[in-house]
């Protein structure tokens, strides 16, 4: 069963590749049918799951004493993840049917998406870390293809490259972490990691936290945490449904999922690092989100920020809540992206006079796109963290966990984590409010579009509507104010949630902050009818560029590497190869390496090298001048020299070698 579930998308990929181009929608409906089947299968599988996880594995590669296996392991969480992936993918596929209509490379689009779904399922179904890594990279690959889907434009091409490379940095850490795990625990099987005991015969004790940090590096890359989060905002160059599925709902959450799975082997110090990184990410991204002008970039930074929350949740020990937030976030953020996509699509249809992604050009869409607005509102408020919505339940849980953690750890510094969490909650509400007001509130700021904007078609609104329903509290928990009593926590409950006394004040404060944020946003942006001439003060600049992260990396890593490669290439041509050629020049004694060396001298102040090489060349030349008189051309002269040399050699032999 898990095999069928895992392979179904790959099967679809093959089928679409072969027959897709014969359909009007290039195989889109085929894919949707397949995914619907997948939803049914994975739901059925979910009902089958009892206390015992489905586990199967077989040998993949056996070398010496090392046996690498492949297999799956389906427990409740995995089963749920399968349903989630299939479900959200199905909705996004349906949405894409309308959004991507008429694109010349549509077959490719469906194929890539199927590849993504398959790889994502692979991550959750895998039972060992190495197999997770395999699909981890494949997910990155499909993400690369999808970000660069509109490859003819420069920005997507660059963004896709950047995303893959930044992810690869994290992946390398992950790979090294896997090796370290294997040496420390003698085990790569996820389900057995919990009971495995670290032995330090093969690696020193210092590797235990290092191993945790290395594994965490993988999550940092994939889940866009500090310091590798820069790829995610640029990934918005991909088609919007892709952003919604991959870069908001599923792929980026894979890091959090994995972190929850492997947190058993992480030491306290590592978990502290995790918590701090998560908090920092959440806070930084929230600040950046408050000043963005691109409709999708706001959501992208918001995604980073929310992922930061989840990572923080894991760091402070609130795994269930972090995973819970993963699920609720998947729904509401997907809905927000799809709604944004619907807006972009409709504005695009209205005319090419202005950039349909720039918030400054929008406004007042409440009237012309009222149904889209209705679908947009619940997920937006869920993101802001208002009660009666799903986001509140899970975010509240994480904040509560952070407060409890700070209380248990004591110390002022520990309190920074929940504090930053609270501030981020306020900022989140502020940028959500700003986003909503700028799109739907006020008046339309692009006169050219006036009267031409129509509401999104039903095929787009349907998926958003379904996702919006899941943004309400009811699908998750009966109690609109307390997520920990919901079915989700009970189902996946890794441990019994301790009932904390802090619950009420934490909830209260976060609600107040959210309301405050929204109020502030509405005050600032409700009358925003004018064009925005963003004041270029320092803070705004800092936030807009996400603390100049990209520029810093450009100078810290990219430039040096590009510089080093030029130097090395020069070194390879001129020095390494130059030595070889130099020897050849000297023996041939025909051309002098002046011409090539003058280039060297011009480019680099290599006086020493120059001098040495010229010196060798000169001495060779002068020797040649002296010896040329021997080349008389008379045969007998040559022969005489030969015999003379032979005699000398014989003499040497006679003198220096002992007689036998």
């Amino acid at each position, binding site marked *: 069963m898990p095999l069928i579930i895992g392979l179904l998308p790959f099967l679809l990929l093959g089928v679409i590749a072969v027959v897709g181009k014969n359909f009007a929608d290039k195989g889109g409906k085929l894919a949707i049918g397949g995914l619907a089947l997948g939803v049914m299968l994975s739901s059925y599988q979910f009902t089958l799951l009892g206390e015992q996880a489905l586990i199967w594995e077989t040998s993949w590669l056996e070398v010496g004493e090392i046996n690498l296996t492949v297999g799956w392991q389906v427990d409740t969480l995995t089963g749920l993840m399968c349903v989630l992936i299939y479900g959200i993918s199905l909705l996004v596929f349906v949405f894409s049917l309308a959004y991507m209509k008429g694109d010349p490379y549509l077959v490719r689009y469906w194929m890539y998406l199927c590849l993504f779904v398959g790889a994502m399922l692979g991550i959750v179904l895998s039972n060992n870390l190495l197999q997770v890594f395999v699909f981890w990279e494949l997910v990155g690959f499909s993400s690369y293809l999808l970000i660069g889907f509109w490859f003819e434009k420069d920005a997507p091409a660059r963004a896709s490259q950047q995303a893959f490379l930044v992810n690869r940095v994290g992946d390398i850490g992950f790979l090294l972490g896997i090796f370290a795990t294997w040496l420390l625990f003698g085990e790569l099987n996820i389900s057995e990691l919990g009971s495995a005991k670290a032995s330090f015969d093969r690696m020193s004790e210092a590797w235990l936290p290092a191993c945790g940090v290395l594994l965490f590096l993988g999550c940092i890359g994939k889940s866009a945490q500090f310091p590798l989060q820069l790829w995610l905002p640029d990934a918005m160059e991909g088609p919007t449904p892709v952003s919604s599925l991959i870069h908001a709902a599923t792929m980026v959450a894979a890091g959090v999922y994995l972190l929850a799975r492997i947190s058993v082997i992480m030491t306290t110090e590592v978990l502290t690092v995790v918590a701090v990184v998560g908090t920092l990410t959440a806070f930084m991204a929230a600040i950046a989100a408050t000043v963005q002008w691109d409709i999708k970039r706001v959501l992208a930074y918001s995604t980073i920020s929310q992922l930061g929350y989840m990572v923080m949740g894991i760091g402070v020990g609130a795994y269930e809540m972090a995973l819970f937030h993963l699920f609720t976030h998947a729904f509401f953020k997907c809905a927000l992206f799809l709604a944004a996509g619907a807006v972009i699509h409709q504005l695009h249809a209205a005319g090419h006079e202005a950039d349909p992604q720039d918030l400054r050009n929008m406004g007042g869409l409440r009237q012309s796109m009222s149904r889209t607005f209705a679908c947009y509102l619940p997920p937006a408020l869920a993101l802001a963290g208002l009660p009666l919505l799903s986001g509140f339940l899970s975010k509240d849980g994480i904040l509560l966990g952070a407060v409890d953690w700070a209380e248990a750890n004591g110390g002022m510094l520990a309190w920074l984590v929940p504090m930053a969490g609270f501030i981020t909650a306020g900022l989140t509400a502020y940028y959500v409010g700003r986003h909503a007001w700028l799109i739907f509130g006020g008046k339309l700021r692009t006169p050219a579009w006036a009267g031409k904007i129509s509401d999104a078609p039903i095929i787009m609104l349907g998926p958003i509507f379904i996702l919006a329903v899941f943004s309400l509290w009811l699908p998750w928990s009966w109690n609109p104010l307390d997520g920990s009593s919901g079915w989700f926590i009970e189902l996946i409950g890794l441990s019994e949630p301790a009932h904390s006394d802090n619950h009420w004040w934490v909830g209260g404060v976060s609600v107040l902050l959210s309301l405050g944020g929204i109020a502030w946003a509405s005050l600032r942006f409700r009358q925003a009818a004018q064009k925005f001439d963003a004041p270029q003060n320092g803070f705004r600049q800092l936030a807009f560029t996400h603390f100049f992260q990209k520029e810093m990396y450009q100078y810290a890593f990219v430039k040096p590497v590009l510089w080093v490669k030029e130097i090395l290439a020069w070194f390879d041509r001129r020095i390494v190869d130059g030595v070889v050629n130099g020897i050849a020049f000297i023996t041939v004694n025909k051309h002098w390496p002046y011409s090539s060396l003058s280039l060297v001298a011009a480019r680099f102040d290599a006086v020493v090298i120059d001098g040495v090489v010229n010196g060798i060349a000169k001495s060779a030349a002068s020797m040649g001048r002296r010896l040329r008189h021997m*080349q*008389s*051309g*008379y*045969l*007998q002269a040559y*022969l*005489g020299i030969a*015999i003379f040399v032979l005699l000398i050699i014989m003499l040497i032999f006679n003198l220096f070698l002992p007689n036998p």
Partner: protein
Amino acid sequence: MIPTSFFLMAGAVLMAIGCFLVLSRKNLIMALMGIELMLNASNLNFVAFTRNDQADLDGQMAGLFIMVLAAAEITVALAIVLALYRKYQSVELDDFDQLKH
């Protein structure tokens, strides 16, 4: 019995004469004759050394071999001399200085 060293000395003298001829004579034919002398010098050495190897007679084998070789060599060499003569109308070695130019 004549000592082996006498044969070797004779061989050395022959070799020196041959060498001198090859290096000094400007006439190609004379130089060739010098080469023949050198070959025969080595031949003499081979045969002389056979005295220490009565069973296998390897040296005499080598001697025979060299004689055959010398015959073949002189044929080819004379042919070359003829060809050179046709080209340069001369058999003087110093006229063949194409290597210099």
